[in-house]
């Protein structure tokens, strides 16, 4: 189990780091094998920072991240089990090298002793799992492949390892609708085989589609978390309610008076209260900080 406990990230900003900016504020949740947790929030809510802290790419200012009870130290041993896939597949490949390089790196670092023929078999196997045709993707340059192919190849890369948890940071936001559903179904497939997935997204419908549990972030704090059907079916925090009502529906059109989200002032100190079993909601000092503007 991957567990985040009171994770905080404070950035120094301004000249000589005089001021601070809290990107993530006391966030706790856990990720179990065989489940997808959606981390939902708007731009700047700290969701990507949380993903990067789990992956050890950014070091937390406070709190702890533990894997099976042991404090996480980013390094080869940890990355064998915990991997990430990012938003922009084109940026994940070194443009001057062929895409095979991301797979070769895994071999060089983790499986230097594996024979070339066996390694090729493993690659074929893992490409098959993400429904890619080896002949179509291997030996190509990144700019010769589509976003969906590149993204699936990155998942295949992670599968070459002894993968247990995957941080999927907005992995579908650069893909078109049909490829998106392919990648989502692939994640669901991996989940059913025991992989724990942290699905970072700003898209509520995707979060609802795939995840068992949802964590809603606002300005670096958790405002509501719990099983997806509770958070989405019975949202209790004003922010979640507004967020859910702001999703454009496939069958309705803009009527000029839709709710918009406005926020007033910095986030106030808060505590999470259990509203129903497993369903946590933030109790705000000023619950009307969010209001509807027409």
């Amino acid at each position, binding site marked *: 189990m991957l567990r985040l406990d009171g994770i905080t990230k404070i950035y120094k900003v301004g000249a000589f780091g005089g001021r601070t900016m809290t990107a993530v504020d006391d966030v706790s949740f856990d990720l179990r094998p065989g489940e997808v947790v959606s981390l939902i929030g708007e731009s700047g809510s700290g969701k990507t920072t949380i993903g*990067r802290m789990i*992956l*050890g*790419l950014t070091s937390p200012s406070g709190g702890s991240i533990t894997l099976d009870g042991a404090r996480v130290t980013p*390094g*080869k041993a940890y*990355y064998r089990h915990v*991997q*990430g896939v*990012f*938003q*922009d597949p084109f*940026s*994940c*490949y*070194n*443009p*001057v*090298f062929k895409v095979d390089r*991301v797979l070769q*790196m*895994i071999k060089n*670092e*983790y499986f230097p002793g594996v024979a070339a023929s066996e390694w090729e078999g493993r690659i074929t196997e893992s490409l098959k799992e993400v429904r890619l045709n080896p002949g179509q993707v291997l*030996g190509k*340059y990144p*700019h010769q492949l589509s976003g969906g192919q590149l993204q699936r190849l*990155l998942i295949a890369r992670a599968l070459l390892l002894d993968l247990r948890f995957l941080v999927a940071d907005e992995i579908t936001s650069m893909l078109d609708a049909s490829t998106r559903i392919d990648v989502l179904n692939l994640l669901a497939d991996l989940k059913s085989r025991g992989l724990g997935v942290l699905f970072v997204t700003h898209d509520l419908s995707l979060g609802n589609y795939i995840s068992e549990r949802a964590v809603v972030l606002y300005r670096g704090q958790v405002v509501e978390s719990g099983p997806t059907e509770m958070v989405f079916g019975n949202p209790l925090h004003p922010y979640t309610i507004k967020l859910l009502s702001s999703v454009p529906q496939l069958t309705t059109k803009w009527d000029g008076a839709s709710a918009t989200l406005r926020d007033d002032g910095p986030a106030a100190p808060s505590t999470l209260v259990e509203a129903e079993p497993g369903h946590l909601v933030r109790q705000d000092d000023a619950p009307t900080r969010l209001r509807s503007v027409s």
Partner: protein
Amino acid sequence: MTAVPARRHEGLYFAIRNGKLLAGLVVLVPLIVLAVAGPMFVEGDPNAYVGIPASSPSAEHWFGTTMFGQDIFAQFLYGMRVTFVVGLLGGGLAAIIGMVIGFTAGYRGGLVDEVLNMLTNIVLVLPALAVLLIVNAYLGIRSVGVQALFIGLTSWPWAARAIRAQTFSLRSRDFVDLARLSGVRTWKIIVREIAPNMSSYLFMTFILLFGGSILIAASLDFIGLGPSQGVSLGLMLNNAARWSALHLGMWWWFVPPGAGITAIVGALYVTNVGLDEVFNPKLREL
């Protein structure tokens, strides 16, 4: 599209089909051969007075002679060798220092970057000439090697700054994160992920430093801070200028060294443009 390039020799495949690269090398390679092997075929001191002063090119003296009767072809061959040595040593040293400092500062960021940046800026504003005068007065060492060393130690800062800036932007790209997630060590990420993305830029940096070193060496020679013995293309140019070769119509005195420097630096530039196309798959003409 022509035949499918073999996997391993893909770079070579595109290299031998790149007109710019070949054109650059066609000029460069003979010049290098001339500089390396040429002096072996000239007997005696290139500064010896061997012919009739100020005679134009002839069968005996291919490039003519100077005001004092020195053979310009012999000077040209020896000068080319010295010029290549100064360019290689000075430019190479500056490029290495600039890369090490630029990559480290750009990749590490934070305090390391602040310190290295400060060092870079200090060296950047050092009055190189004044320092050289002092060094010269105290050490009194005047050889091509020391000259190249001095040029290398004073001309790296702008290269470091440019490389640092590029590294800054490249390190925030996701493929660097992906390499970290693959457990690749930091120096390996710099050398094998970041540097290849700017390989043509790095090569251009070297070429610019190479050309710059040759020119700095020429000006140092002129003010008498160059090697006390021998000959270089810069020294030839400056001698020609000092003895008014242009006004006397002695074109054979200044054209060979001038054309030599121009050919070396120009060919390196053209080679660089060609190499850019070989290194960067997006620029390849298929």
